[in-house]
């Protein structure tokens, strides 16, 4: 982008000898910045069109509750039982969804708790809400709901907990093969919930009931991720958390490789086995990021480029044309 016709600087530099030498006191050469930019723009534009035409982009359809109920009905039932028993991931999460737990700490500081419960989610309601709204025709579900609503908290937890355990022991988690026991109305509720999921109306009931537009699927996504199906689907696509997870894309696409360092920590101890991994990895990344920002001031680190002289390659022409003795 430039022709090498060096000239001496026209302006005599009036810097004091103690001041380091800077850009303006060197000989110059022609350099067309605007032409460089325009060529770069054309090249990047053509490359983009070429890659898009050749490789398109991935678009795996979202999981719907109907497709979940279709593909893994036993998982829907087990998830509903866990929501009622208060043992699902969302039910035991803590802030920002509820106060069931303190949340993670970073060096003993309860940042998660300080964030507050700003997106309140009652996990049992993820099941009971849609059931109540759609049970008008189903007398058995109506009766089961009435029985549930009339029972004490302890009674409800005992029923749902026992049913969740029994499901876990049944062959393939099949609700039809559960050993008999005192589960109260829970099997009727969870089966009724499976029916609601099958109809395809569950998304709407979870995201827009009470609001016409319903633009916030937080509750629906929490319910989905309480199940095992989404994770199984993701693992099958090499997207698990211990498989460099969300850095990857569905299909054979590059995804977000620039997240490699964040994802990396989840793969190694102590993080890979810690209960506080999320907070620790975040803390670690904040520290490293601060280090990157302040790199020019960190003794040692800022000298690495002098010790490992990659710059000899970058400026090889200059070092060749202007050996130390001839520099002005």
């Amino acid at each position, binding site marked *: 982008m430039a022709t090498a016709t060096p000239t001496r600087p026209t302006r005599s530099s009036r810097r004091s000898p103690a001041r380091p030498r800077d850009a303006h006191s060197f000989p110059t050469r022609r350099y067309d*910045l605007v032409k460089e930019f325009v060529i770069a723009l054309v090249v990047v534009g053509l490359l983009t069109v070429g890659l898009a035409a050749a490789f*398109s982009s991935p678009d795996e359809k979202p999981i719907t509750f109907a497709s979940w109920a279709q593909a893994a009905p036993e998982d829907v039932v087990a998830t509903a039982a866990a929501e009622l028993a208060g043992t699902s991931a969302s039910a035991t999460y803590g802030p920002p969804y509820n106060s069931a737990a303190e949340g993670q700490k970073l060096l003993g500081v309860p940042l998660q708790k300080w964030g507050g419960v700003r997106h309140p989610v009652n996990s049992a309601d993820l099941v009971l809400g849609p059931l109540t709204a759609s049970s008008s025709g189903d007398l058995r579900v109506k009766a089961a709901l009435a029985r549930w609503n009339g029972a004490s908290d302890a009674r409800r937890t005992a029923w749902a907990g026992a049913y969740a355990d029994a499901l876990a022991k049944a062959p393939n988690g099949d609700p039809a093969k559960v050993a008999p026991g005192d589960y109260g109305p829970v099997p009727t509720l969870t089966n009724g919930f499976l029916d609601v999921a099958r109809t395809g109306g569950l998304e709407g009931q979870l995201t827009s009931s009470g609001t016409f537009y319903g633009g916030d699927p937080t509750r629906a996504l929490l319910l989905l991720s309480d199940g095992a199906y989404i994770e199984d689907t993701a693992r099958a696509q090499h997207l698990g958390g211990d498989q460099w997870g969300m850095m990857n894309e569905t299909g054979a696409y590059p995804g977000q490789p620039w997240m490699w360092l964040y994802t990396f920590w989840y793969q190694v101890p102590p993080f890979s086995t810690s209960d506080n991994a999320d907070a620790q990895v975040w803390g670690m990344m904040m520290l490293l990021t601060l280090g990157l920002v302040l790199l*020019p001031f960190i003794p040692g680190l800022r000298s690495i480029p002098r010790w490992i002289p990659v710059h000899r390659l970058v400026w090889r022409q200059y070092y060749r044309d202007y050996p130390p003795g001839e520099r002005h």
Partner: protein
Amino acid sequence: MSRATVAPGTSAGHDTWTRALRERIERTVPPGQALPDRQPVYVASWIYVFGVATLAALFVVVVTGGLLALGGFEWWHVSSLGRFVNSLHLWSVEIFFAAMVIHLWGKFWMAAWRGGRALTWMTGVVAFLASIGTAFTGYLTQTNFDSQWISTQAKDGLNAVGIGAWFNVLNPGQMLLWHVVLLPFAVGLIAVLHIVLVRRHGVVPPIEADGED
């Protein structure tokens, strides 16, 4: 705003805000230094192309993102044209990041923060972080399986440090606005600052030619 008694061109101190701003700008990047057609002799390496390539890719990212916005955020699932525009956007982002990462490493090995250029480096890092945030929120607003998975995974990290309470990755409406308004604006602003700083200081001299050893 200026007083009529002062003839044009004569100096009367910083008596207008306009004049103060103009002089501030001229001091920051003197005329001719903004777009010079000569550079110091040592500016002769392929590595210098990657800063400009990053900037060019940012343009393509913004333009393709704008095209994608025309049809609304679920358009690309149902239209083959929309899908193609989405592909353009995706690949321009990949090129943008590739160029930026090469640029970053280049500047590291050149220790390009020397001679009062630390702020150039620091704005560069902030541009990198803001870009990561922008790309991330883009992945969250795809409204497909990928965004379901990424959002439900990423929520734990953000919740663990309290950010999730305000920045809800499970809400694609909120994420979409960050992705198309707030974060691109931040990236653009920082990129402008970064480049003004580059022009202000001139290109950093080679290590060992800067008289610092």
